[in-house]
């Protein structure tokens, strides 16, 4: 512990820890708490029983009330821990309440009931992580019903993968043309691509919907994929990078009578891979998290993406919090893993493009 504190508080010029350093670390710790605490709380809560969630049990661990079915009855009753006046504790079945008292019985001998003050008893609970919250909506079983995780997950993966591949292909082609050729109207094309920044999907929702509908892509994943496949950010990110590829390489290939297409995919594309990787990561995040446009295009639940499924599930199944939380965790896990492994490239990529 002491070493951990020493590690965290050490500055790069040792021996000079002044109050601004302390302030900086206090700020960081507070910020990280504020950022992580809600996510951690969601994660922990997702393992709790439906009952604990309805009762909003504020405890960190997933406690669960133990119940037992007494002989001669079909309804399970709660077990309580009773502390006898002599200090011993016993685990008994709670049959009913009676004023400030509670009627208890030994589970083995349910006929011999006796009353004790309620304050001498407390619920008999165990810590149990409910993996059923995860398995029932994904693998079936239980009452998960309308939430078809596999379907939504498949739709989301399809949209993300196909749209990203498409974006990479067409953006790199456009970037190649803009970076490596001189042709009439090049500046006009650049200007047109910048101009698309002025018309984000949010302000052309209605006509975009009508265009997509007339193409027959409504309620189809293609209606989500294609309109967003071209991105000005992507084209400019790649063009900027391709400008650094020396023209001599291309000239040399032309000498060897390579076709332009071959130059594109054999020389320029492999050399631009770092920028393409950044665009791939950005596109994956955009597509996985996209909400408004899929909401407009997709109205049948068979075509829902994970985000849409989650959002409609949140609105409709008010008493299925245990599934909602577990499915939310499953939705955030992929991006969390991608982020954990690639955060350096994601953060440099975004800092360099200034776009999201």
């Amino acid at each position, binding site marked *: 512990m002491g070493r951990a504190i020493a590690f965290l508080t050490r500055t790069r010029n040792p021996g000079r820890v002044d109050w601004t*350093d302390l302030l900086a*670390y206090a*700020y960081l710790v507070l*910020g*990280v708490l504020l*950022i992580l605490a*809600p*996510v951690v709380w969601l994660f922990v809560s997702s393992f709790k029983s439906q009952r604990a969630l309805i*009762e*909003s049990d*504020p405890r960190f661990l997933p406690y669960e009330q133990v119940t037992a079915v007494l002989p001669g009855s079909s309804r399970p009753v709660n077990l309580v821990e009773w502390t006898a006046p002599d200090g011993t504790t016993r685990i008994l079945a709670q049959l009913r309440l009676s004023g400030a008292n509670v009627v208890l019985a030994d589970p083995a001998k349910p006929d011999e009931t006796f009353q004790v003050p309620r304050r001498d008893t407390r619920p008999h609970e165990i810590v149990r992580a409910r993996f059923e919250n995860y398995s029932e909506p994904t693998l079936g079983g239980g009452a998960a019903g309308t939430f078809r995780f596999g379907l939504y997950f498949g739709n989301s993966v399809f949209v993300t993968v196909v749209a990203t591949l498409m974006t990479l292909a*067409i953006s790199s*082609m456009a970037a190649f*043309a803009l970076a490596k050729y001189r*042709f009439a109207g090049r500046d006009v*094309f650049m200007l*047109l*691509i910048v101009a*698309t920044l002025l018309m984000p999907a*949010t302000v*052309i*929702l*209605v*006509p*975009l919907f*009508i265009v997509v509908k007339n193409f027959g892509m409504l309620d189809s994943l293609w209606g989500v994929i294609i309109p967003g*496949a*071209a991105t000005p950010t992507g084209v400019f990110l790649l063009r*900027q990078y391709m400008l650094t590829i020396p023209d001599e390489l291309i000239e040399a290939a032309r000498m060897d009578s390579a*076709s332009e*297409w071959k130059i*594109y*995919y054999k020389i320029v*594309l492999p050399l631009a*891979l*770092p920028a393409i*990787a*950044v665009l791939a990561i950005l596109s994956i*995040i955009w597509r996985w*998290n996209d*909400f*408004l446009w899929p909401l*407009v295009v997709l109205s049948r639940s068979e075509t829902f993406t994970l*985000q849409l499924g*989650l*959002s409609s599930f949140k609105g409709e199944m008010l008493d299925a919090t245990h599934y909602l939380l577990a499915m939310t965790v499953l*939705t*955030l896990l992929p991006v*969390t893993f991608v*982020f954990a492994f690639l955060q350096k*490239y994601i*953060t*440099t*990529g*975004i*800092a*360099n*493009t*200034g776009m*999201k």
Partner: protein
Amino acid sequence: MAAEAEPGPSAVVDTTDGGPAMRWVVTPLLAAFEPPMRWLQTKLGLRGLPYVFLLPTMAIFGLFSFLPALLNIYISFTGGASTILADRPFVGLRNYEALLACESIFVPKSCPVSGFGFWTGMWNTLLFAVIQVPIMTAVALATAIVLNREIRARGFWRALFFYPVMLSPVVVAVVWDWVLKRRGILNAGLTEFAEMRNALAAWGPLETVAKIAALLVVAALARRLWTLRAKGAWAVAALVACAGAAAWLVFAWDVRATVATQAWRPVNWLADANSSWPFFWVVFVYTWSHLGFFMLILLAGLQAIPRDLYEAAEMDGTPKWRAFVRITVPLLMPTLLVVLVLSLIRAFQIFDEVYVLTGGGPGTATRMVIQEIYESAFVSDAKLYGVAAAASVLLAGVILVLTLVQLALTRRKAGA
């Protein structure tokens, strides 16, 4: 901004070969396009080929950006619920009238039905932007400055602050809804906190302990300030007087009254119609989830400031705060302006988080303009495409101006 000197995004993949995926899947796939492209090359020549490369991107932009942008204006002059353009009757300015024929646009109630929704949303969005943008910029700047210091594990901290940006708006909304429920963890924590304070107030030696601690603080401060005695006798007198007054205040302090509190009454944070809490939490949650993005841009701006400027200032004995005002602030200003405008553009388009978190409620307290457009076109039975398009045109005007400002700023920054 991509024009900054950085040699592009650092190498994600070390080899240009790209590994097996590239070699076995991508390259053969692209090789299949070789014959048709070679044919096109012989037909069009080197001058015509760039247009072929641009075609897919420009076709998508044309069909799904430029065409809709033009159609938007046309649809805003048509009525009816049809999605076939030929079936939509021309109605002139009636859709705009439905939005703008108010006695006063500042009082949405004085507008026609559609205008009521639109202006409620517009003013909510404006209020949101005006409150949220300065807060976001200030917090992002503070975070960037802290992260730009010579601290341990900087990458780790930076990643943590950025993490919420990765989460989808729906996930963010579920996370915070779970925290902010009436019986959620925040209310539970505040209840617990109030109980702890009352338990502390009931603790016997509290009075003595608190007063001794306060006196120690006063003594420490007085000792620090004792160097001022060199300024003369009046300074000593003032110091003694202040110390005496502080000590008297400590003795007069009713510790228990300060510590004790009423039991916490749980607040329905997201649904309490009689308070500003829902709006507050919308601002908070949105800032929480987007802060990291702007922090990152500001951090890049801070790191682009040459170190030797600070070293020169240090050699001249310039105090730290002065170096901040004279070096950091002016050199960061272009980045800061871009962040301001970019966050304004985003704030005007807010929808996802709010829609899932509050649904625009309670009442219309957090109903934003995009939600109004979305619902009047796609959710309402009337399918008011024309009105929604007219509202989009009005909103597009705002976005257009802001984006032009952003582009001008970015260009100037890249040129500088």
